Structure formats: C-alpha cells, structure tokens
C-alpha cells in the first residue's frame, strides 16, 4: 500500500454499463465521458441507479457488461489505485463507527503514513473547519446528526486531495447555508487539485451552480446530457418536469 503523489487529473469513461440485481435491471447501457478537471453532475429520480453507477466508477461493484476506464485503463487494473488518488463521499457518510471524527478524517493519511503526526492533526482540524465542524475531533459518529456525518465524510474525502472525487448527494440533509459552503468547496477543490468531480444530487441549485455538464438519468438510462443551459432547453418531458417542477398547483 502506498499513496500516489502526482497531480494530473483523470478522465473517466463509462461505456455501455449494465448491471442487474436479481432480475431487476438497474443500469441499462449507460455511456458517458467525464473530462479531466470537469465537474459532472448526475441528476435523476430516486432509485434510478445513481448510487449504483458511482459505486461502479470507483470499483466497488462489478458490471455485468460494459467498461469503466480511468485514463483509458480499467478500474481494476493492478496498481491503478496506487497511481491515482480517488475518494467517494457516500450517501450515508459511511464513517467508521468505531473511530472518532478526527480518526475518521485522518485515516487516509495515517494508514498510508503520508505525513508526520503533528501535520496530520493540523490537516484534520483544517478540513473539519472547512465543513463547519471545528473542534469535533473527539466526538464519535454516533453522537452526530445526519448532516454532520455527511460533512465529516466530506472532510475525510478532502483530506485525500483526490484526483477523482465522487459525491453521492453531498448536500442532502444540510441546511441551505452549509449546502452553499459545500458547493463552494467542491469548486475550490477543483481549483486546488484539478480534481475531476462527479456529483450526484437532487439539489437543483447545487447542480446549476457548479456543473460544467449535467446528465439526467432515469430507469438506468441517460435521458439527456449537456451543459446546464442545454439542459434548461431540453425538450424531454421528464427532464423538463424534473428541472421546473415547483409547489404551485397546476392550473
């Protein structure tokens, strides 16, 4: 185990991805490319396969068919993870419940022995500060609210300074002000490390605020893909509904 130190950003290609669980086909031939340093937002109804898609991209699930390429290499290529730093912010946070908040955030640096201990402490404090959780190092995950867990998970991912980062609904459960900070941090991370980012979200403000391109996925297929302004002009009924629905009763 070692940790890569290069800073090139990576290009992600998803080609003809198919995945079924039992006889339920969740992904039915999904293809798209995310360019180096791009912020790519995935939107779509609940249950449409967004989380499953992210897990494939980072190599946690095996596709039934299709390919996932990072810089042209399959995600399971030997040593790929030692070459590129990747991170994922899970929808549920997925903090290690037996570790404190600080230990969770510092886990990557400590396990890979990337920095001396005082540096690690400083970095932990710094990243917790970014997500608005200054001074919570000694808390355990069970003591946190859902939104706080999510933010700790984000801090844990930021520590990696990833070249590819996947966010699974980073702003759900967060209040609007913190959601904006998180959005800004996604942009700032790209500035700092040129990270390629793939963001799954239901938050239209976030999507249109940070995306270079947006893809709409429904029932395991991509309906529309393009820049935010392209999406706004989309004729696809579901996309229109998804982007414009509000609380006003229909006339």
């Amino acid at each position, binding site marked *: 185990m070692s940790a890569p130190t290069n800073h090139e950003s990576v290009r992600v290609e998803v080609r003809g991805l198919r995945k079924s669980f039992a006889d339920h086909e969740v992904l039915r031939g999904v293809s798209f490319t995310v360019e180096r340093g791009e912020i790519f937002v995935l939107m779509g109804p609940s249950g449409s396969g967004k989380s499953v898609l992210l*897990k494939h991209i980072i190599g*946690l699930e095996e596709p039934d068919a299709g390919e996932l390429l990072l810089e042209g290499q399959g995600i399971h290529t030997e040593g790929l993870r030692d070459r590129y730093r990747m991170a994922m912010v899970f929808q*549920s946070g997925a903090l290690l419940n037996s570790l404190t908040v600080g230990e969770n955030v510092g886990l990557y640096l400590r396990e890979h022995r990337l920095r001396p201990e005082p540096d690690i402490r400083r970095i932990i404090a710094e990243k917790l500060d970014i997500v608005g959780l200054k001074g919570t190092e000694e808390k355990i995950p069970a003591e946190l609210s859902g939104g706080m867990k999510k933010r700790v998970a984000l801090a844990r991912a930021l520590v990696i300074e990833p070249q590819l980062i996947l966010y699974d609904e980073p702003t759900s459960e967060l209040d609007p002000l913190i959601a904006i900070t998180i959005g800004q941090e996604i942009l700032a991370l790209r500035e700092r490390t040129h990270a390629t980012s793939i963001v799954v979200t239901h938050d239209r403000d976030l999507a249109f605020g940070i995306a270079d391109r947006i893809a709409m996925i429904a029932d395991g297929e991509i309906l529309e893909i393009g820049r935010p302004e392209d999406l706004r002009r989309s004729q696809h009924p579901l996309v229109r509904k998804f982007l414009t629905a509000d609380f006003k009763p229909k006339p």
Partner: protein
Amino acid sequence: MFRDIGGLVLLFWRTLQALPLAFRHRRKVLEQFYEVGLGSLLMVCILSFFIGGVLALEIGPVMVERGLANYLGGIVGLGLCRELAPVLMAVLIAGRIGSAMAAEIGSMAVYQEIDALRTMNINPIHYLVLPRIIAIAVGLPMLLIFADLVGWMGGALVCSTNQQVAVGMQSFLSNLRSTVEIQDVFHGLIKTFVFALIIGTVSCHQGLATIGGPRGIGRTVTKAVVNSIVLILILDYFLTHLLVQIEK
C-alpha cells in the same frame, strides 16, 4: 458451510501474505489482543477450574475402586492439557471472541464502512483481518497456559476435598508432575494455535461476506460460531492423529 472453504483458505492465504505488515499495524494488534486476552482471562480460569474438577470427579471414583488412585493426577493432567482445555477453550473463545469479530466486521460490511476503506485504498484484510488473526493466534495459546494450570488446580482440589475420590492433593500433584511432560503441554498449545487460526479466519471471513441488514449480521454471527466449532471438532481429531504420529 463447506462451500465456504475455498474463500476461507484464500482469506487465510492473503492474511499470511500480509504478515510482514504486522508491525505497522501493531496498535490494532494490541487492541485486539487486549480483547482476546485480558477480556477472556477470568472466564477461562473459572471454566477450566470446573472442567478440571469434574474430570477428577468422573474418573476418580472408578480409578480408586480399581486401586489406581495413584495414577489419577496423571490422567487428569494429560486429559486436560492435551485435549479438554484446548478444545473447550477454543469453543469458549469462538463464542466470545469469534462472534464479536464477525458481528463487528459484519456491521462494517453492511454499513458500507468496508466500501469506504476500499475507496481510500486501505485493504480491509490488512486493516481488519490481520490484527484480529494475529491477536487471537497469540492470545489463545497464552490463555491455554492459564487454563491448564487452573484446571490442574481444580482437579487437585476436588481430589483432596471430595470423599468419593479421596486422593490427597500431594499425591495427585506429584503423579501429575511425573506423568505430564512439557511436550504434552506443547501438544495442546499446537492444537490451540490451529484452533485460534480457525476461529479468526472463519469469523473474519463470515464478517466480510455479510449482506443485508441487522438480520444478515445475526446470520453471520451464528455461522461464524457454528462453523468455527464444527471445524475445530473435526480438525481436532485429524490434528491429534498427526501429532500422535509425530510424537512416537
């Protein structure tokens, strides 16, 4: 269960390959060791005391009746350190430690903590399995030494206090000393070491393979304990067979 054997062997092999990293993970090894060792010491002592006692109580009267009272210490001593203490302590630890390992790793699998480790390029085998298997493989044989000593004391005490047995503590112990040799203790230690590897590997393997929610974790714990005990009892016979051959 036997379907899992392939995966079990593979996990064990991967853990062996990771052995050079043990020093790096020494803090986690120590943590686990504390759980296995100190956490179980009292229970091991109480149980082995009674096992030694009941062994003397069962065999004692028969031997006294046939005028073999002098051999009681040796028989109880051998039976304990070669067979009963290793197997029963392994069963106890499978229930106490194996179940806890399986439940902890199982809940980590269910709540995506292991996925999170993978995304951080942290190998769950190095991070979770290695420290546990080392801790149990070192800890259980150490517990066995306590079990042997306390079990022998239990036997001696029953002999000297129970009317039906009526072999003095002195003669029990001196016969034990002259019969039980260091290699008999080793015989038990080797078995225990193997049992410890079985418990550690089976429990971690079941834990990693957990799917579903709380019910999945429950199933995992049951399977970890039952499979460990079954494997221990079956392997016990073959291992003993092998060791007896070697000792000859």
